[in-house]
């Protein structure tokens, strides 16, 4: 079985600060991490490979420095890492991104064998769109299984996969056919860390590096800014509220009564609502 996993190197957004005057992101010194959801996808891929045999290829599109993320997943034991890097990709929105990734996955298929499963994470923590998985699936004409919390089974002979998909209303158990795209939710399995030997091997391993042309991308008009139908017109910091919180100050050690007075002063209707509820007990 051949499994391709798409990962993204993202800024650790917990560490991002916005410049107070210019409202721009202060990127200097912000560490990068592998998008957390993608790690679950890598883990699931490795588990399936360990059970069913085959290979795992990890693909990322990004700047040359994204190689760091690929070396990290190599140390978890993935078989191959492909870095798709080209300045033509700069400014890609999700539609342009899925064009590049889908074309590269086709090329991976031609070069290393057609994938049975393409994994992505549910979404990235910088873009947050959750659109790249569905976009890749559509472009490669794969069925898509998103918000997957569990892979129940894969039958390589029958080419069938059974998964659990979370929705607001509950869990759907879905059966589909390989090849398929699976977008993983967080938290299903514990993540492996990789041994020291694996880390050393990973540091020496070769990372396949492809330009747009290497990956077989023919239409540059579909890449980067030119290939992006969405246009970011404005980036700004959320406005501060004009009035600040009214502070409750009392002599009481525990000013609970004063707080309740203030709440009901501001929301008189709430007192009746809450009382009605309370008397229902």
């Amino acid at each position: 079985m051949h499994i391709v996993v798409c990962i993204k190197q993202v800024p650790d957004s917990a560490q991002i600060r916005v410049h107070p005057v210019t409202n721009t992101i202060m990127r200097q010194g912000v560490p990068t991490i592998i998008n957390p959801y993608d790690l679950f996808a890598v883990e699931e891929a490795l588990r399936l490979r360990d059970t069913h045999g085959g290979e795992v290829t990890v693909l990322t599109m990004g700047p040359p420095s994204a190689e760091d993320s690929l070396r990290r997943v190599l140390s978890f034991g993935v078989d191959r890492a492909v870095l798709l890097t080209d300045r033509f990709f700069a400014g890609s929105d999700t539609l342009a991104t899925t064009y590049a990734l889908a074309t590269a996955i086709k090329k991976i298929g031609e070069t290393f064998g057609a994938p049975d499963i393409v994994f992505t994470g549910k979404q990235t923590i910088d873009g947050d769109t959750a659109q790249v998985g569905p976009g890749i699936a559509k472009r490669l004409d794969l069925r898509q299984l998103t918000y997957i919390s569990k892979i129940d089974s894969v039958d390589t002979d029958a080419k069938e996969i059974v998964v659990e998909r979370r929705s607001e209303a509950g869990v759907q158990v879905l059966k589909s056919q390989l090849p398929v795209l699976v977008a993983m939710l967080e938290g299903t399995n514990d993540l492996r860390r990789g041994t020291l030997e694996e880390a050393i091997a990973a540091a020496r391993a070769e990372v396949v590096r492809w330009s747009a042309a290497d990956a077989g991308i023919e239409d540059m008009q579909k890449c980067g800014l030119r290939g992006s139908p969405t246009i970011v017109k404005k980036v700004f910091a959320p406005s501060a509220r004009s009035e600040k919180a009214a502070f409750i100050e009392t002599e009481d050690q525990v000013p609970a009564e004063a707080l309740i007075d203030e709440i009901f002063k501001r929301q008189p209707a709430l007192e009746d609502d809450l009382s009605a509820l309370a008397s229902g007990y």
Partner: protein
Amino acid sequence: MADAPKTPPAKPQAGGRAASKKELPDHFKPYKHVWVFVEQERGQVHPVSWELLGEGRKLADKLDVDLAAVVLGPEGAETQHVVAEAFNYGADLAYLVADPLLRDYRNEPYTKAMTDLVNTYQPEILLLGATTLGRDLAGSVATTLKTGLTADSTELDVDDDKSLAATRPTFGGSLLCTIYTLNYRPQMATVRPRVMPMPERVERPVGKVITHPLGLVEDDIVTKVLDFLPARDAATSNLAYADVVVAGGMGLGSPENFQLVKQLATTLGAEYGCSRPLVQKGWVPSDRQIGQTGKTIRPKLYIAAGISGAIQHRVGVEGSDLIVAINTDKNAPIFDFAHVGLVADAIKLLPALTEAFRRRLSPHNRDKLAS
């Protein structure tokens, strides 16, 4: 490839795309009207659909076009009821694809139904809820139509030249950005539940319904639904729609102290929630997380105890009518957007507050006060 730029394009963030001029190709010019996808799962409409009809109404009025509801579902009374409700929430007309194959959500038939409708009836704006269903569907539809899609919008508007301006958080919520789809149609956006207010429901007769065939048979659909397990703890899904929410953060210090939040919530008949680190530590289940990567809430009263008010938390609670913050640090960012602040130790205050509310709200006490 010959005309490919020799230098990298400008910075992708701000300026880069802003320079693009609006030149809508001729074949997109007939695209008119605002559409809202009315999402239902097993006969239950997700309330975000009504919120979107409320917002869609405003956009349609600004553009002076019709507002249409798109209803996909099985044949029969259940789906007819959804259509009728869409009119009660302000739709001018409805597009309906009713087919037994649309009973459960599956990407393949839903994507086909939606893209066929768009290609046939040509809306200029298409809005969907940013739910698991809406996001799964929107991504496929936008890619099929090769148009732009703005995910998880928190604000929608139509600007002077009538383009849809969709604003959404970016970089984990630290910034907002406004996104346009100038040269493609439809302009698509998903919107998170509870970001837009619920419109008023007004009983109206059913108006024009345009039905459209699905044009698929079961054998065309690869993915099968083997089973459906309804969410076990039904109450949990109500956090987004609760009138009163009590939440705790890292300031509580331990999972035991988080019980104080639950106790106050129980006393108030409220839902409880938390900030993200508590979920990451495994103290509270993930469907209780409030914020950017959790739920958006819009209660009448939100009490936040021991929560610092990071931007990712803030974006999930800003729609609350009254935000009360309890924090030991008077400089905590939460006081920048709370309405009422209390500099106090939540571990001491919460039990006292629970007790004081109990006294205040007990029917016995109220009768005494009244007489």
